[in-house]
């Protein structure tokens, strides 16, 4: 199973096409979407760097926010020095200092953490990150206290970096180069050793390798690129505070990696980009977006344990030469089931949210305690009418009723397609 990964000609075409689209994006996107795209790229790099430790070497780090934050604060201090004319350092090279901070922290912290494996490793990394999280708000000189540090991007190389488009290309450049480096690393003997250690550390040690040193190195490289991502975030936001070290931030990258698919190379980047975009869009639309995000996490963990990337890889691997048309009807059916259930759940949650909100309670008080109709996405609903609640219940029931059918049709299509591909 463990052969050196290579890129086929077809994948190369797809990659070049993808890069071309990424490079052309700022020409068509609105400024706020460019900003969202920057955050998506940064999240993608963070997830790629994390998955070097997790996916390749099997080290479940639960404290990667430490290196992300240290990279960000290192970059902020450098930018501040440039702003105060203490130092002349071109803005495009600011992420280098994030890489350095991540690497140093990765070597020091990693040396301790990699003495343990499995759950204990996760706990050491968690403790290190929580230590920073609890220290940072009181350590004014380094982390700027609770308010954090803010600074300005300085123009360099005839580029002002005043608008997001410049920052976008700066971020894109660093993310692509870093992603290529991470990919190249998986192909080196050291990268193969990381996979071998994940599969069976005892055997690697019996072969004469110093596994502690090797694990420290892999962890430090992962931390280094995490530092780059953190520095890019600092460049984009021009500010940061101690919350960047929170366990939530560490957990987020783990989740994004697994939603994207920890077993594939680009899957984590995809998962991170998708989830960042989802958070951005839904947090503007509804106050209960964290609930939906939690539901997605749970559903993906339960039903798609290999993640989006794993799903795509499965299709690419097993269905070579099979007729895609076979899947149109089953997948449309699956999509319909998903849409129905989502629509019912979202309507129910949003209705409850409106009905329990302070604004609605005030409306009722104004109406003398009577149950007044409420408004949701432009329509008016009566909370006491069974029709209103059937809008939430009926789609869910309908979706649930269609689920076995969609499942059976999909399985049938898969069976036939695999049969066809093997023939």
């Amino acid at each position, binding site marked *: 199973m463990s052969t050196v990964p290579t890129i086929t000609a077809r994948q190369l075409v797809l990659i070049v096409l993808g890069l071309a689209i990424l490079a052309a994006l700022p020409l068509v996107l609105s400024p706020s979407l460019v900003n969202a795209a920057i955050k998506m790229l940064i999240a993608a790099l963070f997830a790629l760097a994390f998955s070097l430790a*997790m996916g390749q070497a099997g080290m*479940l780090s*639960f404290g990667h926010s430490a290196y992300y934050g240290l990279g960000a604060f290192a970059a902020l201090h450098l930018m501040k020095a440039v702003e105060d004319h203490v130092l002349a350092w071109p803005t495009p090279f600011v992420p280098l200092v994030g890489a350095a901070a991540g690497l140093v922290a990765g070597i020091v912290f990693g040396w*301790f953490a990699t*003495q*343990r494996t*499995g*759950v*204990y490793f*996760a*706990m*050491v990394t*968690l*403790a*290190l990150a*929580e*230590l920073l999280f*609890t*220290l940072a708000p*009181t*350590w004014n*000189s*380094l982390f700027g206290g609770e308010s954090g540090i803010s600074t300005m991007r300085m123009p360099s190389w005839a580029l002002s970096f005043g608008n997001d488009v410049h920052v976008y290309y700066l971020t894109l450049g660093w993310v692509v180069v870093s992603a290529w480096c991470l990919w190249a690393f998986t192909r080196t003997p050291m990268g193969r050793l990381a996979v071998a250690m994940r599969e069976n550390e005892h055997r690697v040690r019996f072969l004469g390798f110093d596994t502690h040193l090797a694990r420290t190195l892999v962890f430090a490289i992962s931390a280094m690129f995490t530092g780059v991502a953190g520095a890019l975030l600092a460049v984009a936001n021009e500010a940061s505070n101690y919350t960047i070290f929170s*366990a*939530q931030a560490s*957990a987020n990258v*783990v*989740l994004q990696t*697994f939603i994207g698919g*920890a077993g594939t190379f680009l899957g984590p980047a995809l998962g991170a980009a998708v989830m960042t975009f989802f958070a951005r869009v839904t947090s503007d639309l509804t106050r*209960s977006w*964290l*609930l939906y*995000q*939690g*539901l*997605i*996490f*749970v559903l993906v*963990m*339960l039903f798609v*344990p290999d993640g989006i990337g794993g799903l795509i890889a499965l299709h690419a691997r097993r269905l070579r030469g099979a007729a895609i048309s076979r899947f149109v009807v089953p997948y449309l059916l699956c999509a319909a089931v998903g849409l129905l259930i989502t629509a019912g759940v979202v309507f129910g*949650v949003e209705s*409850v*949210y409106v009905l*329990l909100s*302070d604004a609605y309670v005030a409306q009722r008080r104004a109406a003398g305690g009577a149950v007044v109709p409420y408004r949701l996405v432009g329509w008016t609903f009566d909370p006491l009418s069974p029709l209103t609640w059937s809008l939430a219940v009926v789609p869910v029931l309908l979706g649930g009723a269609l689920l076995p059918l969609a499942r059976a049709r999909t399985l049938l299509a898969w069976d036939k397609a695999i049969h066809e591909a093997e023939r």
Partner: protein
Amino acid sequence: MEFLVISTLNGVVHGLLLFMVSAGLTLIFGMMGVLNFAHAWFYMIGAYIGFTCTRTIGFWPGLIAAPIIVGSLGVLIERFMLRRVHRFGHAHELLLTFGLAFIIEEVIKLFYGDFPVNYAMPSYMKFAAFTLYGIDYPFYRLFIGGVAILIFAVLYVLLVRTRVGLIVRAATLRPAMVEALGHNLPVVFMGVFATGAGLAGLAGAVAGAFFPTGPSMGVDFGTLVFVVVVVGGLGSLEGALLASLLIGLFMSFSVGFDGSLADLLGLVGLGDWARGTGGLLTLQLSTIAASTPFLLMLLVLLFRPAGLLGDRQ
């Protein structure tokens, strides 16, 4: 002297509270090896159930309802979710429960709002147990400590002295053997998980009446409960109690202690150098009280990975 006595008392009570919250996780994480990130959120549900019960059926029924409801929730989560992802490994369990923590917090915010609710103990429990140095010491703090000690005693007897406890302990060490002897392992694990979750629910209903009951309860204890279990030693109930008390005392003493590393170095004549260096060395100990549990966990993991009273890794 006053500082010493008050800090010790507060530290012990805080430690016992910590033990009450993490006792269930000692079973779930320590014995079954399930990284249940949502444990502190179970504690939060318990507090909200307690709050709802005081409004409807009373305070004491709430203390019974909370563990039962949260325990049943634990059964559902174990049976229909955790068991499915168990074969994919620790990471999936952790992430699943992390997603659950999100859902729990948001559903509670949906129904109870973003701000702490007014969950109060019955008025007849609001009295001072004794007066120390002119300060009334609330009886309820002693009540919390008492419930924690009761939980410890019951769990200890259950695990060490009964047949059920024998099977549970054997199942964590030699699952295949226990199964071969005819015990229904999945049911045993489900029971352990439900008990652990129920204990968190009870802790929430008891402690929530004294400490603020709000949507941040989960985050406040989220990682701290793992510290207790790891420092105490996986699966060791006595270890968890010892670790909780240690952490409680550490935190209460460092909060009230005025001094920094520089002052300590001053004793050996390095004070001026340390103050000149600044940074970590001049931070007041009281401001880094929140860090001490994680420092303790780090030291334990590096030098005694089995935990203070654990006997296996």
